[in-house]
């Protein structure tokens, strides 16, 4: 039996039956998603790394509480977003300096096969938009990031943040308006 071909729930069953090495399969499948979403939220690579590791440990500890009523990715996103919100609450840190991220993003864009000027402009634009998104409060940022960056449906987001569909739609709608206004305010 090839373990990599098992679906998430089958892998979880294996883990719960004592084969904890199977958990590495789940880590492999979801580490980039979890890391990306957290990075969007905290905007610091080291912090995102630590937080994402914490999330997987939380997932591991609570694995027996997972029920396949909703997708494993939804469940793990729920744990990830709640964990970051709790962490933020503890740290009392609402906005962060974005400088590290923006330089990094700009550096990354230089590697693309474009003229340095256009890639610099693209890097700057990306950095600007990242900054604007990061300026959103979590209650808007999380639905926006999950919907627009990670392609989750309204329904899935409603399961992740445990709020009714109407609230999710409203927050995404208002979040977009806020992004638009903040972007317009940037020079």
């Amino acid at each position: 039996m090839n373990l990599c071909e098992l679906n998430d729930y089958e892998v979880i069953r294996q883990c719960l039956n004592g084969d904890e090495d199977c958990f590495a399969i789940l880590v492999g499948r979801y580490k980039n998603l979890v890391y990306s979403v957290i990075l969007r939220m905290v905007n610091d690579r080291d912090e995102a790394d630590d937080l994402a590791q914490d999330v997987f440990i939380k997932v591991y500890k609570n694995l027996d509480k997972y029920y396949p009523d909703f997708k494993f990715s939804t469940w793990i996103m729920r744990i990830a977003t709640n964990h970051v919100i709790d962490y933020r609450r503890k740290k009392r840190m609402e906005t962060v300096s974005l400088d590290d991220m923006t330089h990094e993003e700009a550096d990354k864009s230089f590697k693309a096969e474009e003229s340095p000027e256009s890639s610099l402009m693209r890097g700057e634009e990306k950095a600007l938009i990242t900054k604007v998104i990061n300026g959103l409060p979590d209650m808007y940022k999380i639905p926006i990031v999950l919907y627009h960056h990670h392609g989750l449906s309204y329904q899935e987001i409603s399961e992740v943040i445990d709020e009714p569909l109407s609230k999710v739609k409203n927050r995404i709608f208002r979040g977009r308006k806020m992004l638009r206004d903040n972007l317009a305010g940037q020079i």
Partner: protein
Amino acid sequence: MSNISCAFANRIIMKYMDGRATEKELALLRAHAGECPSCGEDLELYGRLMTDFNQECLEEAPDGFDDAVMTKIAALDITRESVQARVESFMCCASGVFSALIGVGVLLFLNKEPLLNYLAGNERFLNLIDVWASVSIFADRLSAGATAFMSSSAAAVAPYLSNARPTLLVAALALGFTRYILYKRVKPAKLGRND
């Protein structure tokens, strides 16, 4: 001037951001945005956001992420109780409580005479009986049949039981002890890797 309102143009923009706007709607929007500076600005700003949203956003987790997680997990000591173990522990508790109730019942029954004598000499208890007398008349009638049956069968067993008091006590203790041992032996599956 195009024939759509700004409000309608705005709805098309939101549909566009949901990926649901039709070509026809987008054409109307562009035409309107060309003539309306406010909607033109909206389209430009939302368009820039959409360009960003459409880019690959999945960041790679740092190298060694998997190993770091698995090492931390290996250091955990997690015991998971299986559903079966949970059912068993519930059954153990339930039967424990049941045994205890039976034991208390037997003890009360065996010592009923001294107990009743004591209660008969207790004024408070007698007052209580007065208060409850009217209630108990009804209850008495209700339970008369059952009581008659129970006391007759209990009376039949009583001589044997009163001779076997110490034996019963030992048996009850042994039963409790056995249950405890059995409960302890049903160890939940251990999932930590540190053994």
